[in-house]
């Protein structure tokens, strides 16, 4: 563990000008990010009357209320969905990580036989997507309709994550792998003892990507689930967000016009973000700390 402002001996003192420029840049970025987010939070705490009066966004609520949150959490629908979402996210991320690590590692040997065609098979899936009907038919044929598995299995491996992870695996210095092999380690042992420990940062990133994907996913639930009791949080929250929005693109059909609910919409954003805020610091540890210090030498 290093002290917060530890500066290695070889690193020169930062110049004053450099520090000012940096501080300014950080300040501007923080403002740009925090201001709208604060607006979202404030609006979620404002009354609908105040929101209407102020035209939609409230920067500081005059009369803060938790009404929007109370609405969302009343009735237990959201609590149940929260359980579903956490389950799907945790198990889905685990399953996806296992499958992705296996495949990415399997493809990380540069001269492997059949390696390139297999990689291309995965890569092309990023470029061609079949559309909802064929996907639906496959899920239906496999008997996955209305099951939690339908939220995980059809999106088990993301080609993007696979390619990125493989790219990091490939860039692990070959010397390390060769020396492990000389020590008699097999392919699996190398994966477990060498590659994975060296890749903590990217593994954390990929796990985060998967987790966020599962957490925010609503579309498969929409197409494949029939019981609202199985709905994940993202779909319930979507129902809140869409309230009062007309169907896009269609002018006459389906135009039941409901009062705006910005307070609830903004509260929904907050509710969806909080769990990620909670998990993030645990993963952040891994991609802000170096792992390769002196690895090659040792």
């Amino acid at each position: 563990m290093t002290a917060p402002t530890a500066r290695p001996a070889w690193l020169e003192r930062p110049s004053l000008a450099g520090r000012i420029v940096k501080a300014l840049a950080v300040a501007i970025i923080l403002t740009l990010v925090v201001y709208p987010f604060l607006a979202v939070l404030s609006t979620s705490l404002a009354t609908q009357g105040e929101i209407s009066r102020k035209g939609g966004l409230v920067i500081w609520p005059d009369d803060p209320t938790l009404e929007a949150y109370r609405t969302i959490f009343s009735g237990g629908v959201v609590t149940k969905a929260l359980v579903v979402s956490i389950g799907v996210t945790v198990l889905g991320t685990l399953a996806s990580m296992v499958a992705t690590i296996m495949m990415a590692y399997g493809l990380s040997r540069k001269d492997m036989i059949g390696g390139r065609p297999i990689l291309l098979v995965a890569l092309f899936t990023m470029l061609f997507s079949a559309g909802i009907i064929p996907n639906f038919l496959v899920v239906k044929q496999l008997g996955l309709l209305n099951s939690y598995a339908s939220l995980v299995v059809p999106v088990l491996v993301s080609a993007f994550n696979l390619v990125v992870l493989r790219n990091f695996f490939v860039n692990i210095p070959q010397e390390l792998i060769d020396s492990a092999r000389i020590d008699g380690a097999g392919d699996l042992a190398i994966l477990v003892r060498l590659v994975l420990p060296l890749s903590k940062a990217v593994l954390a990133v990929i796990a985060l990507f998967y987790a966020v994907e599962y957490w925010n996913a609503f579309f498969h639930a929409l197409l494949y689930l029939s019981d609202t009791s199985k709905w994940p949080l993202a779909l319930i929250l979507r129902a809140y967000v869409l309230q009062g929005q007309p169907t896009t693109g269609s002018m006459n059909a389906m135009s039941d016009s409901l009062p705006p609910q910005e307070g609830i919409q903004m509260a929904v954003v907050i509710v969806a973000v909080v769990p990620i805020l909670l998990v993030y610091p645990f993963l952040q540890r891994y991609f802000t700390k170096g792992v390769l210090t002196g690895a090659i030498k040792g």
Partner: protein
Amino acid sequence: MSNSPRLSRRTLLAGAGAGALAVTAAGSLTACGNGGSAQDLANGKATLPSYQPITRSHPDLPSIPPCGVTGYYRYPKARFRSVAKTPASGGTISALVAITAPPPTPHDQNRIWQAAEKRIGARMNLTMITQSDYKQRFTTTIAGGDLPDFMLFQKIANYAQLLQAKFADLTPLLGGDAVHEYPNLANIPTVCWQQAAVGNKLYGLPLCRNGMQGPGLYHKEMFDEVGGYPKDADEFFTFVKELTRPKQNRWGIVGHQGSAYSLKTALMLFKVPFNWQLSGGKLTKDIETDAHKEAVAYLRKLYAAGVFHPDSNAPNNRTKNIFNNGSAAVSTDTVTGLLGAVKNQAKVNPKFQPRALKALAHDGSRGIVYLDFLINSFAVLKKGDEKRLKELLRVADFLAAPIGSQEQQLLTYGVEGETFRFDDKGTPVLTAGHENDSAIPWGFIVNGPMELFDAANPDTVKYRYEGVKDLSPYTVKDPTAGQYSATDATVGETLTQNIMDTCTSIIAGRKPMSAYDAMVKQWRAQGGDKMRDEYEKALAKS
């Protein structure tokens, strides 16, 4: 714009597609002995259910024709039984429906749902999909082949063939006086049923709405300030121009996304025929009339005068707020949208008087109002034997129970003492723990005439009712309502979108007025003429 190559391909494609379809469809359908093309199959005139209004609900505000909208300040006291027998005989009834609000408590904990099932006599299996996403689920369900008993319908390409192949023809069961077997369904006005018919067959149960979206909403107090309600287009222009004061953060009009700067308001103002004009068996599309062009030119003038709020194409919530907080005097929102405006108005500014725009003609003559919101959509029934269909219709009859009936009370509030109690004014109030049990979307299987009731906000009832009442005498119908055109069902929405896009650009001054004629030409070439032809033939047979 040279679109003639596209024309020939497009028409060829549509023609070939329709022809080939009919052949395949006929092959798989033994029941339909009617030869000819799919277009022909959809022609003719259906015998629609005859209207037998229920008068036992005793509304505070009486029924308004043509859609039978009623208003209630208090929950009706005397509760009658509208369905004598248990409609279903066990088993499960499934339905695919849309929801516009978050889903209710799931079935296993939902006491209202369970109580309703007990009276209905079957397990009611509802699959609920957020309305904006409904079309996707609808299409995949069709493609998957396992259809539920009830299904909220969507007009996708070639929907006439789809209806014919997969869904029950309800004409023999409901047409004419046959509907009287289902008194709550007979309470639905014929004009709403027509929206659920295609050619000579009735396929669906309508989800009734108030009839018209209306020209828009306005702030009465602002118009009063500049001279009351305008008499004609010129005065309307003068008023909104005068009310436009950007320095005070106020504009004359706010549109909404997809409204092409309130084009519809202007179309009614210039008395443009609703969708099509029928005279002597010949159809003229609205955009082909001079009035339509004048309406666009008028809006172009308004835009140039700076009358439109700069956020006139913003997402819906934003534009609603702009009107509700008085940043715009006029909005293109619907009569239904008055709900939000009136509900929060006291908290925003007690002086505001948001009201529905009344019928107004450009030349001071009698105005027109489009009958463009008769139904939300309609629900169709999976094909089955007569016994099953009758059972399903009895269930639908139960679900269509009007306010004031025991059935409606059960479906909405559940069991007295358990899921709700009456407050001192006689309004049912859901008990703690059951607040979320009530939002079951029964109304997306069938919905009777609109009953405006909100005990907590009587003003929303009053002004929405008044809006509908003021507009109703001026309503005009789309002459092609209930008719089918294969071309319209395939490319109709795309062509409409092209028109809206071009008009938006002309009004905003990004395109010259001369682009208008090119737009009409393009519409005719890309399928408009074919649509006209198909509709004319269909109308000739009805």
